[in-house]
């Protein structure tokens, strides 16, 4: 293999690039995702920055060669940490031409994107298929794609009678050749992935890998080097939902009650598998209401608990969320946001649940809401949330989203700490005379009796109550309870530092974001800054309470905008008077809070934000400055 490796590299000149975006697209069931995940894992192991994201069809098993059936993967590989899926792809491998239409529509490709396309359809016995193929090629070319037709199917047939099940590894081999990937690592990866299928399957896939590698050596005139960035420090590779699941375990959470819902479900799949390793129990409840009720019961009884869901599930939990706030039950609620409203876009990303989470329950329901911005933070935030839930005695919300949930990247391997874990419930006698809600005036925080604690007996209630948890309809106790619950947010805020501006602390434009858009925003801002634009960015992890100092930070910029994946009326909409304009959700909150005229750039296409779109918005807003700076 070594020989082969070196031999090929002699033959064709290699271009060194900072990064490349590769897509593999196929019918569902042809294994494009497996090949891409392997490419990502190999690259991560070699020390590259990596981000992979799956392309998922709407149906479980869509028909072959259908436009809506595109199943595949995007792999972005760089000589630096990669934080998002990037803009248009550089290279695409496609098993048929039809599946590419949707990608084109999503603007995944640009003029110059290279397409390696299986040409078996050109000679298909079915005349229709031949025509469709020809037509597609024409259309793709008109979009500027550089098409290289390859007999992928034919080549694979030399090694297996059923290329549908092997083409993916052949393609992986080709990509290893093109990107100079370590073939030994690829072989290991294959061995791991197919470990349950037995040696015969592994051997066949090894053969196909090698065949692809050799084939590309002569037949594919593309060679790129992507230098490694950090091959040494210990890292893990996973998606955001896996990180969330492991973070839940690292937090020492004992009970997770959930009901399946896309895109949150895979958190529970991971827990179903892994939770026993830390002694946790996964409860699949009869519905989302029961799930949060169960979690609240467990928490009331002293067992740390979480519930995980997505939009429609959040809606159903609304009433119990109100109870958790009112009766101050510690609880971690994780919302993996998807496209809304209603059933909406179940597999697609949106940051549409911010206001719903903050204001969903009726009455005054102050809540702590945080949002991880990276997959690594998906791991760490449940640990943070569990602590906050217990320290501030109430529900804490984590707003993740479908982009984080399904994106895969490498991050430094966490070192689990005993302090991360919840201690076992206190069962010592309760201090005599201490009320179950002995609110501290300054913080609103109170110690909590756990059933089993002698002398702590009290009845939790969702009715207005005094500090002894006795139902109290009189004016003062109601007011006092409201004030104490609200004060917890102020108390937490007083412990927070102002967020750190990325870039100069003053300038022409400040881009404010939250959640999964961090990578794309900072990439765009970095690019604009490198071109001399006076733009900075700010990313909020705390949405409620918000980190302090925002107004002051904003005051140092001429313009402030948010970048969000949710809806706003366009500023220039001829049918929307200014006084009726509806803003992006964070922008709305910031306007109310700071009275600064915060504008917003929102995207609501169900897609993660591409850095190029943010960059375009920045240059649109700073055109003259851009020239001045050059």
């Amino acid at each position: 293999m070594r020989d082969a490796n070196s031999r090929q590299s002699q033959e064709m000149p290699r271009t060194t690039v900072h990064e490349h975006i590769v897509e593999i697209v196929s019918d569902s069931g042809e294994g494009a995702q497996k090949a891409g995940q392997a490419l990502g894992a190999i690259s991560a192991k070699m020390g590259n920055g990596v981000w992979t994201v799956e392309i998922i069809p709407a149906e479980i098993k869509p028909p072959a060669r259908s436009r809506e059936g595109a199943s595949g993967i995007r792999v972005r590989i760089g000589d630096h940490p990669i934080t998002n899926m990037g803009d248009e792809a550089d290279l695409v491998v496609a098993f048929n031409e039809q599946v590419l239409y949707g990608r084109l529509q999503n603007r995944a490709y640009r003029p110059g994107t290279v397409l390696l396309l299986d040409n078996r359809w050109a000679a298909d016995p079915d005349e229709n298929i031949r025509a469709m193929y020809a037509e597609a090629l024409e259309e793709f070319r008109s979009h500027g794609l550089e098409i290289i037709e390859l007999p992928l199917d034919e080549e694979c047939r030399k090694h297996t009678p059923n290329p549908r099940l092997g083409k993916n590894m052949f393609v992986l081999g080709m990509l290893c050749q093109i990107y100079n990937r370590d073939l030994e690592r690829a072989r290991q990866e294959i061995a791991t992935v197919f470990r349950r299928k037995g040696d015969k399957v592994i051997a066949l896939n090894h053969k196909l890998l090698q065949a692809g590698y050799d084939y590309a050596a002569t037949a594919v005139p593309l060679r790129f080097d992507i230098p490694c960035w950090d091959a040494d420090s210990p890292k893990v590779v996973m998606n955001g939902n896996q990180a969330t699941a492991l973070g839940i375990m690292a937090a020492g959470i004992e009970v997770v009650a959930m009901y399946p819902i896309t895109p949150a479900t895979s958190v529970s799949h991971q827990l179903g598998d892994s939770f026993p390793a830390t002694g946790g129990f996964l409860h699949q409840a009869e519905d989302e209401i029961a799930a949060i009720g169960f979690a609240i019961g467990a928490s009331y009884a002293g067992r740390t608990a979480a519930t995980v869901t997505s939009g429609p599930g959040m809606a159903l939990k609304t009433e119990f969320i109100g109870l958790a706030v009112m009766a101050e039950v510690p609880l971690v609620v994780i919302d993996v946001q998807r496209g809304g409203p209603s059933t909406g876009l179940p597999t697609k990303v949106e940051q549409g649940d911010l206001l719903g989470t903050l204001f969903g329950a009726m009455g005054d329901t102050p809540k702590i809401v945080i949002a991880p911005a990276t997959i690594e933070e998906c791991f760490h935030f449940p640990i943070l949330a569990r602590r906050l839930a217990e320290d501030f005695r109430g529900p804490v919300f984590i707003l993740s989203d479908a982009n984080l949930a399904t994106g895969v990247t490498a991050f430094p391997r966490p070192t689990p700490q005993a302090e991360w874990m919840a201690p076992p419930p206190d069962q010592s006698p309760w201090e005599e005379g201490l009320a179950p809600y002995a609110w501290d005036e300054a913080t609103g925080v109170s110690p909590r009796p756990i059933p089993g604690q002698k002398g702590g007996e009290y009845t939790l209630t969702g009715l207005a109550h005094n500090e002894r948890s006795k139902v109290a309809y009189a004016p003062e106790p109601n007011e006092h309870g409201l004030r104490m619950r609200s004060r917890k947010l102020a108390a937490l805020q007083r412990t927070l530092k102002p967020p750190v501006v990325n870039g100069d602390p003053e300038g022409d434009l400040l881009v404010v974001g939250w959640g999964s858009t961090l990578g794309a925003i900072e990439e765009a801002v970095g690019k604009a800054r490198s071109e001399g634009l006076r733009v900075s960015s700010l990313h909020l992890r705390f949405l409620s309470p918000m980190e302090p100092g925002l107004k002051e930070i904003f005051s140092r910029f001429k313009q402030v905008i948010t970048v969000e994946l949710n809806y706003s009326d366009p500023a220039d909409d001829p049918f929307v008077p200014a006084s009726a304009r509806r803003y992006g959700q964070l922008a709305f909150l910031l306007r109310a809070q700071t009275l600064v005229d915060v504008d917003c750039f929102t995207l609501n296409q169900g897609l993660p934000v591409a850095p190029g779109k943010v960059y375009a918005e920045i240059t649109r807003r700073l055109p003259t400055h851009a020239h001045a700076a050059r």
Partner: protein
Amino acid sequence: MFGLKEDWSLKLPPRYFTLEDYDGGVARWCPGCGDHGVLMSVRRICRDEQIPPEKVVSVSGIGCSSRFPHYMKTYGFHGLHGRALPVAEGIKARRPDLDVWVTTGDGDNCSIGAGHWLHAVRYNMDMVVMMFDNNIYGLTKKQTSPTTQPGERTNTHPRGALLPAIDPITTMLGMTNVSFVAQTVDWNPVHLHDTLVRAWKHPGFSFVRILQRCPQYTAHVFSGLQDDPDALLVMEHDNGVPVDKALDRTLKNRTTHDPSDKMEAFALAARRDAIPIGLFFCDPDRPRYNEMTVEGMGMSVEDKLAGLEDQLDRFAI
């Protein structure tokens, strides 16, 4: 209860509990409301069985009856309308040491809570569930409940309730993994008490429908039952609710019924000539979810850290 044993030896527990130890104060139900008697009975059982008050958790939904936890001097959870059962399940899941008592109403359980009821029966977690059936929505002032008889006038159906009243007994007997279904009446404190004791002793989801007087809104429904000595049919069996001798003179209408016979239980529940009280059905061998939920409980922090490291290894590069 403590005291001298039959062999004159003495059992000396570290703590003794009296009725006052479970007394959360004067209950604010209407005078004559059936809820009062059930409260007394539950306090008595706690005392008789000497359950430490800190180990008792009284869980409820919303309704007149659901005020129950406030009147127990134990831990209590007065939650949301219709949602007592999921909360009780969560409490029991990892706290096998806690004694869970659920109070629910005919509306709370059979209307808004019906879905949880069906699943709670299936989970079969060890707890006592008392459904206070007054055939009406009490707390919200006289609206039709699922157990309101058709034709009864209520505030939402002033011309009479429209639909057949739900029979909670047959409904439950049809449910999967059902393990204990009993019925009693609030106005016979002896039978009530013995039924609740029998329920408490059953390991699993012990459901007791308590026909409960609401003098405020459905006085006429229950007065008939109270007056007619043959209105109630007492089910007797060695495995059933033991029938106290004290009842021999008052409750003469009897039948023998083996609570392991589900088909006969259906037939009895369907009888319209008298209301059977006692144990309809019992199967102590149904699987119990609370024995599954405790898996992994009490793992040490060290083991958890090690387990987590193993899991991280699976993602390591």
